[in-house]
């Protein structure tokens, strides 16, 4: 074996020299300020300096990039098509760029590269609230506005969060829906997902509070069953509920898996139409049960509207119509005027009801 530089290290040195030369050339374009600011760890996204000018014109040729949790998810595709709709309506454009898997840190390289492209705003559905935060803060320091949508990121890493709905609105909406369907009187049950799902339990808590109101005094919640978001288990739990409570008048299943399984059971049961079923479901899953009369009406937010609101909010933010402070209002196109709530949150609204009249207008 010979000592000294062989061919391999020499090739490496050549490569390093080329790389360095390229970097020097490239770095000449960027200023020292950027280098410095990209190194400190302070926050930048949540600062809401300046004052809002509600009459500011919408910036011309607005460019946004939206980052879904993962490419190839139909629900998210619908959501992001709403962003594109909003931007195109305002004479701008949106581009979707996302990771191929939904791991906590998969969005980080995408955010870094998108930030280099310098769009006016980034709209993101976070896979993990904190893993993406440092990258988003860096993007914000380049004067890119950050809007979270659907699932929030760390609140100091974004200016706005577009929430599809609120716990309170879901709880209220579901109870009102079942009360209307059973005529405000009788026994009801809830078919939930897993016993420790935080969102389910938060909704159920609101439902219990709602049921204490005088308007619902003749309704009795007899049981909360858990179908574990498993189709077969939810199916069996529905069967169990109906056998155990012969006077059961209604079931609320605030989970897409549960409500579809319950509908499947009821659709072939003699109690079809007699026991009312509602919950949170998607139109595509529930269409045939609405058409065959098993289900009168169920609810969910409209994913396309979530995206549309995010697009409108991002445009208003970039143009200076809003800065992200609580109480500021802006015109959100076909969704009308919207107000920013506490902590930069904008709620799309109560869940939308889907029934025989409108279900064919939706495809998701």
């Amino acid at each position, binding site marked *: 074996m010979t000592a000294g530089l062989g061919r391999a290290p020499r*090739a490496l040195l050549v490569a390093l020299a080329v790389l*360095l030369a390229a970097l020097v050339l490239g770095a000449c374009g960027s200023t020292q300020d950027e280098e410095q600011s990209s190194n400190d760890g302070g926050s930048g996204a949540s600062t809401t300096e300046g004052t809002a000018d509600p009459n500011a014109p919408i910036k011309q040729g607005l460019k946004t990039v939206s980052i879904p949790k993962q490419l190839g998810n139909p629900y998210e595709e619908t959501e992001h098509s709403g962003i594109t709709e909003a931007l195109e309506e305002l004479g701008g454009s949106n581009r979707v760029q996302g990771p191929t898997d939904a791991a906590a840190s998969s969005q980080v390289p995408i955010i870094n590269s998108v930030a*280099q492209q310098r769009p006016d705003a980034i709209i993101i559905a976070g896979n993990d609230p904190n893993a993406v935060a440092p990258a988003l803060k860096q993007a914000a320091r380049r004067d890119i506005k950050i809007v979270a949508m659907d699932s929030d990121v760390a609140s100091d890493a974004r200016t706005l969060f577009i929430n599809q709905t609120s716990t309170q609105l879901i709880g209220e909406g579901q109870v009102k829906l079942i009360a209307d369907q059973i005529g405000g009187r009788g026994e009801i049950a809830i078919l939930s997902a897993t016993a420790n799902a935080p969102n389910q339990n938060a909704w159920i808590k609101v439902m219990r509070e709602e049921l204490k109101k005088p308007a619902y005094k003749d309704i009795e919640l007899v049981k909360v069953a858990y179908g574990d978001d498993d189709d077969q288990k939810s199916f069996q739990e529905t069967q169990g509920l109906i056998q155990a409570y012969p006077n059961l008048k209604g079931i609320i299943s605030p989970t897409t898996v549960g409500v579809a399984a319950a509908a499947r059971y009821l659709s072939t049961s003699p109690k079809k139409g007699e026991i009312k079923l509602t919950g949170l479901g998607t139109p595509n899953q529930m269409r045939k049960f609405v058409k065959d009369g098993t289900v009168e009406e169920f609810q969910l937010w409209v994913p396309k509207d979530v995206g549309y609101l995010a697009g409108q909010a991002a445009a208003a933010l970039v143009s200076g119509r809003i800065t992200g402070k609580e109480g500021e209002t802006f015109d959100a196109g076909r969704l009308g005027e919207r107000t920013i709530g506490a902590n930069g949150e904008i709620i799309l609204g109560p869940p939308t009801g889907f029934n025989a009249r409108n279900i064919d207008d939706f495809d998701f």
Partner: protein
Amino acid sequence: MPPEAAPPAPRETRPAPPPARSGDGGAARLRGALGSWEALLVGLLIVTMIAGQGLSSEFLSADSFTTGSLDISEVALMALPLTLVIVAAEIDLSVASTLALSSALMASLWNSGLPLEFIFVICLAAGAVCGAFNGTLVTWLGLPSLAVTIGTFALFRGLAFVVVGDQSVTDFPAGYTDLAFGNFAGTFIPNTMVLFAILAILFGVLLHATPFGRSVYAIGANEEAARFSGLSVRRIKLVLFVLSGTVAALAGIVISLRNSTAAANVGQGFELTAITAVLLGGVSIFGGRGTIAGVILALLLLGGIQKALTLSESISSYWIQIVTGALLVGSVLGPNIARRVREARRRQATHHQEAHA
């Protein structure tokens, strides 16, 4: 830009020693083939830079280097010991799962209130144990490392989920997360790359300039011959797997701090990128050949391609997987075809000589 802060430059490394199985002429030819492989990588790197700049005017910038190298930090770290493992004609598919287990341990121990420095030690030790487990199954039970580490690939990832579940832990002290995320002393070189450079030099010296390294080549070239010449093959392989596990655990610490998030689902698929880097770097999948320098070139190339594709405004992220996969296949196929061509030529040449004699 201070040249001393440049990415890993293991000047100490020497060219691959001639594999034990080839004669003198063969060794020279192999050395030539190795050199040309690395020249090919340099060529590809230049092509990538030109193409990358074509895709986005932002490509050739300090920013791209910072974020691009940060993105492959963990893969780069894991590729170093993996190079030695593959040179010894073994494989370790469990590295990304060990990384995840390390991250999960970090999450759960931090929740239980232990000091972070102590947690680092436990994580590294756990990685060493994972590696020792792989190594023991491979050396003492004589099982093929491909099968063993496919098993532990699932096992360690599963354990990671047992340790911490679906939770993720995010409240690590900012001092450490800034260190993992930040750049080295005001330059555009991320701290993680400095860590990589140090380890690259260590592994480069270990592989290319120590008796241990020569043994690794000898084992990869011909295990039987290595054993008969008195090398303790089992012990050496065990050490390689322990190194691989330990560095994977270190990568787990790095990625958790860098993203301020420790969770069991981090780094899925990283093992394939790391193996791609090693094979693309000219390390033979059959063992006995390859250099740390080549692997570093391959990492630069992979990082550059990934950066170029994510920067491009018109190319979908799916292409990163497609290109990575194609490079993996190409880097195994390329040398094989080249060797066959060379052997065919040599046969022709000896025919000629015999005919003339």
